[in-house]
């Protein structure tokens, strides 16, 4: 017996699987209309290759993904393309999406097929190409394109290939019935995958509540290297991360993929689809869907063409619309409700539950959380659901993220056990959505800020350069002015500084004032006949000029002192300015002394008069 590792938490919900395993898989047959969505799983939507009115054969490509992640979509049967339009698709929001509507002609006539006898004769890439051409994406969960998944990054060697037949969700029996009836195909498909990946270990894992499937698979793997792992029944053992832990004891790193630890999980249905694609050249045009719940009289599994309306399948199972209160696509733990049955089966649709109100009752109103911790005991990821709930409810998304919100697999175990009937998973989805929105807004805001800052910087730089040029011009002008003044007024010491523009201006004003004053005084002296000659500078003006020059010198000396203490690089310049000002003060003193002498002479001469 292989060793198993138990994952923490988990729950044992009522299985409700027996209802849909009483009958063999039934062929759903041809509905009046098939509505094939162009996007049935993650990745890019496919581009339509057909026109309205075209006749297609079963297996013809209806649409293809030309760039990006995705696989083509095929005609599920032969018939006429009736429309390419927006139709309701299976989605929690009940949204519409582009679909190709096909009216079957009833012939179910295949295109020409080229089955491969010995795929081993091909290159691995060729086989991966065939899998892609067959439109195969994972039939279990998100529907990741299988050919992409089967080619993990070069540095990731897959040593364990797991076929997930746990099917831990209540009600769903699609994999169970597939294992019972198509064990040989499953093994054949797994062999193809194993040939591509060359793992050391191949395991088919089944929960121990499916004895018939276990027996069937056990027979089919005789003589192969494939290992059968019968694991204890506990929800969510079929979760990829949980199943890997059960079988290997290893954990997928947070934010990583199983290939990071050398493991790959594939779905049972995907293995069958791979076998069909290689050995029969049959693209993925149908899948097994469980139709169950107390709302249908004959629950069971149907092989339904992709695009078959769910309402058609429900009718075949004997839907009692009056009693049906809730339609769930998927299981009761992770599935979502449909507002209408008028949506098609897609590649990822595994189960439809038509539940009565007694079966899946509307939960009682939410009560306050009493921190009982049941949710933490049930969480298979070892999160703290209750703290996540507090933070999600309070809008403290940063704290929720800190407590690993994004590791939540939304299995619903916490909500299942909550005594206060709190829809915990809904809170987490909300918080995740909000954080994603915030992140994208943050990104946008960051980009906008970067652009703004770049612009500001550019404007600043331009302003600085402009200012610089202006200063240079002013300086040149001041210098020219000073030179001119120095030549013009040699007798009167000029108060202008050549160090900066303001000083130059002030000096000009000073000179103008001096001239005006001199003129005025000359006039009055002319009138009174007792004033000094107009050409001789008067003492008052000279005193003022001296005081100004002295003040300036002091100012300059202070600046020089400061510059020295700071070891600034303008020390030299200031030194020159100081000595210049010293000269100026000296000149002013001389001029004043001379003027006083003159005046003294004049006064004397006047008194002599």
């Amino acid at each position: 017996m292989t060793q198993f590792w138990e994952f923490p938490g988990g729950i044992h919900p009522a299985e409700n699987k027996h209802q849909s395993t009483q009958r063999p898989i039934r062929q759903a047959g041809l509905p009046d209309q098939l509505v094939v969505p162009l996007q049935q799983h993650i990745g890019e939507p496919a581009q339509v290759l057909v026109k309205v009115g075209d006749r297609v054969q079963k297996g013809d490509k209806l649409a293809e993904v030309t760039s990006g992640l995705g696989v083509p979509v095929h005609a599920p049967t032969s018939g006429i393309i009736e429309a390419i339009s927006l139709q309701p698709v299976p989605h929690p929001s009940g949204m519409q999406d582009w679909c190709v509507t096909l009216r079957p002609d009833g012939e179910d006539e295949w295109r020409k097929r080229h089955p491969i006898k010995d795929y081993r004769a091909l290159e691995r890439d060729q086989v991966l190409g065939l899998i892609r051409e067959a439109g195969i994406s994972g039939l279990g969960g998100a529907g990741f394109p299988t050919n992409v998944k089967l080619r993990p990054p070069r540095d990731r060697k897959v040593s364990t290939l797991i076929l997930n037949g746990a099917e831990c969700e209540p009600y769903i029996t699609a994999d169970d019935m597939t294992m019972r009836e198509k064990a040989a195909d499953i093994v054949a498909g797994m062999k193809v995958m194993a040939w591509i990946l060359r793992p050391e270990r191949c395991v088919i894992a089944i929960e121990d509540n499916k004895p018939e499937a276990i027996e069937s698979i056990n027979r089919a793997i005789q003589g192969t290297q494939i290992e059968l792992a019968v694991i204890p029944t506990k929800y969510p053992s079929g979760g990829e991360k949980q199943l890997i832990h059960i079988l290997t004891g290893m954990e997928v790193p947070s934010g990583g993929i199983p290939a990071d630890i050398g493991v790959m999980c594939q779905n049972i249905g995907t293995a069958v689809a791979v076998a069909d694609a290689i050995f029969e050249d049959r693209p993925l045009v149908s899948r097994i869907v469980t139709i169950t719940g107390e709302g249908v009289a004959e629950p069971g599994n149907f092989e339904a063409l992709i695009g078959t309306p769910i309402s058609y399948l429900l009718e075949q199972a004997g839907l009692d619309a009056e009693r049906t209160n809730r339609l769930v696509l998927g299981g009761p733990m992770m599935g979502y409700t449909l507002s209408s049955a008028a949506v098609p089966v897609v590649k990822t649709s595994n189960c439809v539950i038509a539940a009565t109100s007694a079966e899946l009752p509307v939960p009682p109103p939410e009560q306050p959380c009493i921190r009982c911790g049941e949710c933490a005991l049930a969480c298979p990821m070892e999160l703290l659901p209750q703290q996540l709930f507090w933070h999600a409810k309070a809008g403290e998304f940063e704290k929720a993220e800190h407590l690993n919100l994004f590791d939540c697999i939304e299995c619903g175990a916490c909500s299942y056990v909550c005594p206060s009937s709190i829809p915990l998973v809904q809170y987490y989805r909300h918080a995740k959505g909000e954080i994603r929105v915030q992140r994208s807004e943050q990104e946008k805001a960051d980009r906008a800020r970067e652009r703004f800052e770049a612009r500001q910087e550019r404007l600043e730089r331009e302003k600085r350069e402009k200012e610089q040029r202006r200063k240079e011009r002013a300086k040149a002008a001041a210098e020219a002015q000073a030179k001119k003044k120095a030549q013009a007024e040699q007798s009167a010491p000029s108060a202008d500084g050549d160090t900066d523009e303001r000083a130059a201006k002030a000096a000009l004003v000073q000179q103008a004032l001096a001239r005006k004053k001199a003129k005025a005084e000359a006039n009055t002296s002319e009138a009174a006949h007792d004033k000094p000659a107009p050409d001789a500078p008067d003492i008052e003006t000279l005193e003022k000029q001296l005081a100004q020059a002295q003040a300036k010198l002091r100012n300059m000396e202070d600046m020089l002192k400061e510059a020295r203490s700071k070891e600034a690089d303008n020390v030299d310049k200031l030194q020159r300015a100081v000595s210049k000002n010293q000269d100026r003060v000296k000149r002013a003193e001389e001029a004043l002394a001379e003027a006083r002498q003159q005046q003294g002479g004049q006064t004397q001469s006047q008194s002599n008069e």
Partner: protein
Amino acid sequence: MSFVQQSSPHARQARPTSQVMLWVIIAALPGLLAQTLFFGWGNLINVVWCVGVAMASEAAVIKLRGKPVAFFLKDNTAAVTGLLLGLSLPQFTPWWVSATAAISAIVVAKQLYGGLGSNPFNPAMVGYALVLISFPVAMTTNWAQPVMLWGDTPGFGETLSAIASGQQTVIDGWTMATPLDEYKHKIASFTSSEVLEHPTFGEGVALGWEWVNGAFLAGGLLLIGLRVITWHIPVSFLAALAFMSLAFGSNADEYAPLSLHLLAGATMFGAFFIATDPVSAATSRQGKLIYGAGIGVLIYIIRTWGNYPDAVAFAVLLMNFAVPFIDHYTPPRTYGHHKPRRGVPGRSRG
């Protein structure tokens, strides 16, 4: 056709809060029965009175808050608070003291903090501590003596009228210091064997009290068996108390022996019914172990070196303070992570 729109999971199978609380009530009944058998009608009267006052206070505040009264009363949490208070108060506590405790438990400790689930402190213990500090005489001298020691045990009517009148002179004839109190105050001047001669200790550990503790232990095990509580808090609580007693108080001539610590006070009641209140306790497994152990250690410290002979209320309240801190530093390691993410998110992030 219109179908119910709901987010997953669609199936649920939970034991509603009201049922959880009902189990707590049921599990406490053996203890109440033992109290009644060994200490008379006092506890039963206290329980009924406190439950009534607690539920009336709850109803009044919920009405004031404009919320549906019936919806919240039906969760049985106010009844449990009243019950726990009634079980812990001295048998002859005057009615107004118990009422003060019950009202402050519900109105102040629970509803003013936001009601069920939002109270940081155990409401019953807030009520208890409040009256213990406010009415120290009524809260220490009103413990009934075991019925075996008094041929003329007060009947139901007498007990009721004593509680209703609060006449200390009447009550005094029926009361006696609790074994923990007796031991704590006598051991300073007597030897252990001399102290234990007092009739309150009886033949076993502590007359009556050992049965009451045994009954609460049985009720607690029932709660663990029913998965209403987990083993972590009671076990770490009792283990820490035992460790403290053995490590620091092994000399019976100086300190109360371990048997007395475990079976003479509110120890089992505290370990299984008080400390396990999920709202005010730590949440993760590791956190619960630390929380329970903290209570055990504090009980020993207060009983031995503090002023109070029993200390469950104070120890629980002190550890209630520490719960947010403990919770931040004891998250489990999430699948796919190397280490648990302790502490609070850094300021630099986001």
